[in-house]
């Protein structure tokens, strides 16, 4: 009884913090609300990838391709490029569906592959998508190639335009703040789906496939269908995140969908603790925020220590990032918050060499 009360108090506290966070952040600077929004996009991506990597155990190194597909679907359907301006609640499902289709397109031919073979094929798939986006400006101009698509419509609900400030009851809500709340809603829905999935029939089937595919099939699990479902679901999350990215940025180009981004999302999942929703969220938030914090601190610190800037902040940021990846893995190889199953595996002996 007391525990449930405590739990609810905790939940309420977190909810209030999350609701008030944009106001606190906007004191530190309007940029921080935007940074928080991008961090949430990364959480969305990481949760989507977690379905594929964490639940089903299929290492996907080209996940950013689905993000790209979602982003471009949104951009093409709501920008001057083709003169289409569909509302966002029509486009987001379309983006999710197209991304899911791409997920199946990637999943179907690679069903037989496992482990590292799958990793390289997914990586190649990501590169192929990016190269196509880069070159589909010839002979018919679809994506405008490396120039990217600009002037993408913001999210509009009724008369509320998410790219402008509005005031409600005397409180001013900037565009970024409105996106923050929209993303928060989306995030809540996706976290809920993730948590519910994990303990469902499907989630257990994925876990079985991850642990031993042959045994899973012997137990009557439709491994083909389940794997495709994992790819499709993971991809559709990526597609939704991509659509939101398009709307927030109002401009996209293939630059945003490079391999490093895929690697970043995989790092978030593994660093946080594969298969554990809370861990994945933590990993994504850390990897999204820490580089930003470093960006704002590295320069002043250098000025204070040496009186001038010795090394570009960007370089130091990446060096610390790389070092952090190595160190965290050395000391917590199963991630910061390992999932229960992983923990069990780690404490038992390993049969592999």
């Amino acid at each position, binding site marked *: 009884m007391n525990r449930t009360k405590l739990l609810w108090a905790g939940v309420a506290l977190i909810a209030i913090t999350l609701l008030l966070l944009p106001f606190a952040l906007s004191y530190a600077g309007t940029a921080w609300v935007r940074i928080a929004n991008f961090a949430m996009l990364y959480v969305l991506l990481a949760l989507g990838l977690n379905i594929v*990597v964490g639940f089903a155990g299929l*290492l996907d190194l080209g996940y950013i391709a689905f993000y790209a597909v979602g982003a471009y679907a949104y951009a093409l359907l709501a920008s001057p490029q083709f003169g289409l301006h569909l509302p966002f609640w029509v486009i987001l499902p379309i983006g999710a569906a197209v991304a899911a289709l791409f997920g199946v397109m990637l999943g179907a*031919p*690679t069903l*037989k*592959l*496992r*482990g*590292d*073979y799958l*990793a*390289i*094929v997914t*990586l*190649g*798939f990501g*590169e*192929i998508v990016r*190269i*196509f986006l*880069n*070159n589909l400006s*010839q*002979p018919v101009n679809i994506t405008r190639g490396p120039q990217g698509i600009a002037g993408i419509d913001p999210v509009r609900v009724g008369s509320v335009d998410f790219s402008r400030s509005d005031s409600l009851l005397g409180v001013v809500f900037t565009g970024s703040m409105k996106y923050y709340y929209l993303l928060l809603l989306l995030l809540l829905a996706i976290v809920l789906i993730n948590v519910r999935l994990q303990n469902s029939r499907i989630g257990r089937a994925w876990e079985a496939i991850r642990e*031993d*595919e*042959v045994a899973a099939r012997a137990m009557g699990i439709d491994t083909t269908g389940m794997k495709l479902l994992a790819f499709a679901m993971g991809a559709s999350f990526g597609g939704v995140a991509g659509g939101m990215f398009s709307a927030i940025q109002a401009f996209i180009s293939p630059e945003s969908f490079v*391999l490093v981004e895929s*690697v970043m999302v*995989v*790092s978030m999942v*593994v*660093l946080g603790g*594969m298969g554990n929703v809370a861990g994945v969220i933590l990993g994504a938030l850390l990897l999204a925020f820490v580089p930003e914090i470093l960006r704002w601190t590295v320069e002043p610190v250098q000025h204070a220590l040496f009186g001038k800037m010795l*090394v570009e902040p960007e*370089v130091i940021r*990446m*060096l610390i*990032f*790389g*070092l*952090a*990846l*190595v160190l965290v*893995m*050395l000391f917590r*190889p*199963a991630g910061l918050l390992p999932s229960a199953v*992983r923990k069990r*595996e*780690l404490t038992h002996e*390993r049969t592999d*060499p």
Partner: protein
Amino acid sequence: MDIFIQQMVNGLTLGAVYAIVALGYTMVYGIIQLINFAHGELVMIGAMVAFTVINLLAAAGMPPLVVVLIGTACAIPVCMLVGYSMERLAYRPLRHAPRLAPLITAIGVSIILQHLAMLVWSRNVLAFPQIIPITTYNFAGAVVTGVQLTIVGLCFAMMGGLALLVYRTRLGTAMRATAQNPQVARLMGVDVNRVIAATFIIGAALGAVAGVMFGTYYGVAQYTMGSVLGLKAFAAAVLGGIGNVPGAMVGGLLLGVVEALGAGYIGEFSDLCHYDMLAASLGERCADGGHFVLFGSNYQDVFAFVVLILVLVFRPSGLLGERVGDRA
């Protein structure tokens, strides 16, 4: 036909370099099942070190061949050292960790090396000094340069040397034993840690040479060059069957040739104006020798991956790979 032979020559040169880099991936994978994502950075560091040395010596008026040799001789130990430290610090402590952990440290190491290189050599594209006089030979209508011949020759020599090492020496036997079963190898008196370190060092040395070759062939080096090259080489290793030494060689050469031929011909093949029926419907865009090219040569990088996916769909463990058990 001339274009065909020319592209074959170019493709073989590129493929030979891919093969040498792929060997580094495949040896490490074969022995500890790790995708050493940072291997491409070793190639980059090799090219960079050689660039510095060659740049310093080019002004001294030494014969060009000696300069390049000294550059390579400096690059190899540096890469060996980096390769060894990488294994010792980032991979050895994780040998019994979950499979993805060393992959993430490899990514971390790759990021660190790339940005350290950027600090040392700046973010600019560095142009190798043109010191080797360009000698060309005509071969069946294609132009072959001396550098190309040297690269292909050297690569085949190194592959031969490596094959001898792996299949004919004590170290090679120890390596194959460790790859098969580290526990049993240890029981047989193999110092597993030393063998694994040796594998990394040999792979790094090969990577260094590949870096110098790539740098002198294209005449440029940049701190990011390792990632794309590494990616292609890794694709080549998987194509041939990862963990399989001859497979990496075959995969590398095949990938190079496919890429060169693809880039040479795709524009022509995908020009819809070549096909009468389609040309008629396209009307004026095809009139007066116009073109409607669906895919230009800027799709070159796609070939490596399309071929890779196609091969893996039909042979899930690569061209020469052994059938692995279902428990990955």
